[in-house]
């Protein structure tokens, strides 16, 4: 099915500028900043409306600054509204999107001290000072805010703090990378991670909003994303860590072992897809487009991390100097966008894929030149990504343009479906079809389910879902920061990936 880019553009503009006579416009004032982010970010991902007269950097910056709550030190949903971490996150994401973070340099100290006041002694994060609600959604928001403001850094291995770990590993067998935790001068990162893990439900492998709360799809993004930004996901989910701690001969399955957790969490994810292709947030619930983001983001983080852990454990066997390891890690971190495409192998092993491509190169006129229209685009696209990885530094705008053109050409002979990443436990193909079927053909926009009313929230999360599963018509998105990957790379935001 077609992705109605033009229609979505019209929808976003009409939502933002033309609906003042509708109550919903005023009713939704309290989340205007978020609405603005959803709309503009969707446009960015769809790569449309760049030259629109409606959207200019100046207007956006002016609007975002007008939402700043001077008394508290954070952003509200609209001019005059109270500061809240949800809207501060959207505000900062908007500024990052428009490369305008320097415009709030003067507020930065106040924002940081406000953010710092939101962490409670148990590591949890409140939404605002007045409203004492605790929820892991706010932990994720905190990570995004701190990272965009440059307050997260990667710790040196020497400063490791083992207290945070709830199971004691034999330290000698642990790959050094997992000790490169994220630290921040603003909050206690270890405690934040501990709190998130206290919300992990042994019963089903999901995460709840608070300790003891039922697992929920939205929390999968928030918790896995936060842990990844904190670089502590491996500590709890890396299956290669618990070889040493395995009880020999015991009949009791250690329910706190990493591999056990990982499997259980995958089982939670795999059960969320319904026959229609869409995902639900909890068992026995209906499908909803927004879970294409909430679930697939967390899911793809885990899958990417798993492949990184596998690579690590492979390289671990060869003895290396610590210094070399550090260098290697640095190298590994740089080519994230390409790696992202690479790592997402699923049932297709990308190493063997690489081998295949290399064998193609030897034959030269073999596979590709013979019958190019028969070649699967999935493989071609991955080949490109590997080639770009190899000539990583040379990638210029021209290349991108060429790539775009190439992809456009390919779209015609074969449907876009074949370009999707392989989903593993979740079938991306039917998910893609589901998201597209939720589009409103007349007015544009995406609804939670087919035939429902579209809104900006579902439009953004639908488009973001398409971006996550690798739809070529949409730009890539970071599963952690909910920002386009290009921007995350430009800002060099910290994460375990």
């Amino acid at each position, binding site marked *: 099915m077609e992705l109605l880019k033009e229609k979505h553009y019209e929808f976003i503009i009409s939502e933002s500028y033309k609906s003042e006579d509708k109550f919903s416009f005023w009713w939704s004032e309290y989340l205007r900043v978020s609405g603005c982010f959803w709309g503009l970010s969707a446009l960015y991902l769809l790569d449309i409306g760049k030259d629109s007269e409606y959207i200019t950097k100046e207007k956006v910056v002016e609007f975002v600054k007008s939402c700043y709550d001077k008394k508290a030190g954070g952003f509200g949903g609209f001019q005059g509204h109270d500061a809240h971490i949800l809207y501060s996150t959207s505000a900062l994401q908007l500024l990052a999107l428009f490369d305008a973070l320097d415009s709030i340099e003067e507020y930065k100290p106040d924002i940081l001290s406000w953010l710092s006041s939101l962490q409670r002694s148990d590591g949890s994060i409140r939404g605002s000072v007045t*409203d004492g609600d605790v929820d892991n959604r706010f932990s994720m928001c905190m990570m995004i805010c701190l990272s965009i403001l440059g307050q997260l850094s990667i710790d040196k291995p020497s400063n490791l703090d083992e207290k945070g770990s709830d199971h004691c590993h034999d330290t000698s067998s642990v790959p050094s990378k997992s000790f490169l935790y994220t630290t921040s001068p603003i909050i206690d990162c270890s405690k934040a991670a501990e709190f998130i893990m206290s919300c992990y439900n*042994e019963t089903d492998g999901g995460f709840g909003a608070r300790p003891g709360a*039922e697992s929920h799809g939205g929390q999968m993004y928030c918790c896995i994303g936060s842990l990844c930004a904190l670089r502590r996901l491996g500590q709890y989910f890396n299956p290669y860590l618990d070889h040493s701690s395995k009880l020999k001969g015991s009949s009791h399955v250690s329910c706190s072992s990493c591999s056990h957790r990982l499997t259980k969490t995958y089982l939670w994810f*795999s059960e969320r897809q319904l026959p229609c292709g869409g995902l639900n947030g909890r068992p*026995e619930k209906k499908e909803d487009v927004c879970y294409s983001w909430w679930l697939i983001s967390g899911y793809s983080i885990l899958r990417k991390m798993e492949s990184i852990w596998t690579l690590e454990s492979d390289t671990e066997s060869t003895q290396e100097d610590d210094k070399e390891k550090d260098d290697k890690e640095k190298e590994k971190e740089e080519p994230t966008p390409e790696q992202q495409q690479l790592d997402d192998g699923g049932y297709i092993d990308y190493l063997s894929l690489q081998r295949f491509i290399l064998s193609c190169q030897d034959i030269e006129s073999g*596979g590709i030149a013979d019958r190019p229209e028969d070649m699967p685009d999935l493989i071609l696209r991955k080949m490109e990504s590997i080639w770009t990885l190899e000539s990583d530094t040379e990638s210029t705008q021209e290349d991108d343009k060429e790539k775009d053109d190439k992809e456009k050409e390919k779209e015609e002979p*074969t449907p876009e479906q074949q370009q999707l990443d392989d989903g593993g436990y979740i079938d991306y193909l039917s998910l893609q079809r589901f998201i597209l079927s939720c589009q409103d053909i007349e007015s544009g926009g995406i609804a939670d389910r087919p035939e*429902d009313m579209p809104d900006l929230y579902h439009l953004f999360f639908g488009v973001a879902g398409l971006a996550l599963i690798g739809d070529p018509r949409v730009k890539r998105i970071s599963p952690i920061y909910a920002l386009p990957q290009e921007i995350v790379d430009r800002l060099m935001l910290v994460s375990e990936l």
Partner: protein
Amino acid sequence: MHGIKKGDKTFEVSQETITKYRKLVKLVFARKAAKKYDDQTLMLTKTVLGLNKEFYSLWNYRKDAISSRLRDEVDFEKDEKDKEEESSKESETYSLLPELISSELKFTEAFIAKNAKVYPVWDHRMFLIITLWNRYATHSVKESLRTVFRDILENEISLCSKCLSVDGRNFHCWNYRTEIRKMYENEIYLHYKDQITTTWESYCSELKDVALSDLEFTQSMIKSNFSNHSAWHRRSGALKLLFKASLLEICGYDDYLFIPTYSAPLSKFIELVSDHSMIIKLTEVISDRIKLEYEFSQAAFYVLPDDESSWRFIVWLLRDAEWWNDNLDTFRSEILASFWTMVEELIKLEDSAKWPKLSILLLSELLINYNGEKKTVDVFRKDDVFLAFYYKNTKMGGDGGTIATKRDVVVQQIRERLGESVFKGQSLYTCSISGKPLEEGNICVDKLGNLFCYDVILKNLIDKSMPLRFSHISTRKNVIRINSKVFQHGILCELSKSVLSKSNPFFVYSPCGCACAKGLCEQIIGFEMEISPQKDMIVCPACRLKYLERIEIGS
């Protein structure tokens, strides 16, 4: 918008209302900036919030107003107290639940009755309860206030019950209820804190009551809807509390044990128990309860044999729950055996249900430990692809394994619709296209290391029906036929006769078609390089023919 059908006009109001709303918002913000906390403030925000429940800034304003007015009240009381220093009847005049808060509770209750899925409303109510808690906890004379406070909490629980009877899956309400339950625990802790050595038993029994009443509540919720995952989840929490309280009761007073109960995992406590008679008692309590739970969930299995929630609960109960220890081994083995029989019976009745089989798989490690391996396999039909896949992955030594469940079913449906064959991942024993087991003389491999039946490849090439995934195979020459022998569908190494597996990857040489264990090949090549270091020594180690390509399979 969530669940709003297209064309639904409930969200549209008249232009007048819009104008009125905008005026009101302006007015309220002006008062908010001026920090006016009078009755009119409460009235005005009430009107605006009635039109827009999500307006968090106004909820904040109300919170500020309430806090400020309560502070004034305290200051006033203090002044009064200073005046009449004699007054020691503080507790009698002190109202734990001031009018201000009780009316606010009613106010939010009305909102919840209308729409129980609004974050700020529940937050606001939580704020009120926390305010009450602080008033209670910091007050010097708690004894007489205890019943009042317990009534307040009890009222919250019954509000939740009402709310959950309308929508049994409302997570806002469940989460709020969980917080209220934690407050119960806090209250009990606070109450007994000072004379704990003498009142240990009542402390434990009150904790137990909290757990038992939750078990009762979730039981009634589950009975009315067996697939209520929220209720099953809460039940697991209540069980943890019950066992912890039982453990405290059995062990008797101990400083170390006396900490708010939800903060430490039960397993840590169990480790501390060393006395034999205590262990026996504890084992008894736990096994009795688990028996009850098992029987209860059995009812669910028969009513809804393929419902995720109850099966997840039983898998957690029998496999993951934190209280299992060596003393419970006998009991565990019995209950697992009974479970097995039950599931086998169920599978006979409901062959198409997935979860019974999946639960056996998830428990397979335990079942094998207690009941031997052979039986597990009998449970599955041959066409249960996803189960077989999972089973193979966990048994093949893959750490943690791969679970392919609903996904495969979904994929299968779609592929069938698209006329493609089922996609099963890279298999070492079956054809990647047709899924047929590999047979000697009929095996080929592509350059990626995917294994196929050769006749299937030929058929697909002739029919031009090659799945898109394998469309890099466009002629017969794109695949290499494997000549090696096969044992039970697994390819045998030409040199060592070992079977191909994930832990024993092979090299296939082209054009000769020999397959040899990778490790062995590398050893041989290394050895030969040592004795005759010729650079173009590229022969197949099995048949000694020059090879052009070498493909790795099983890695």
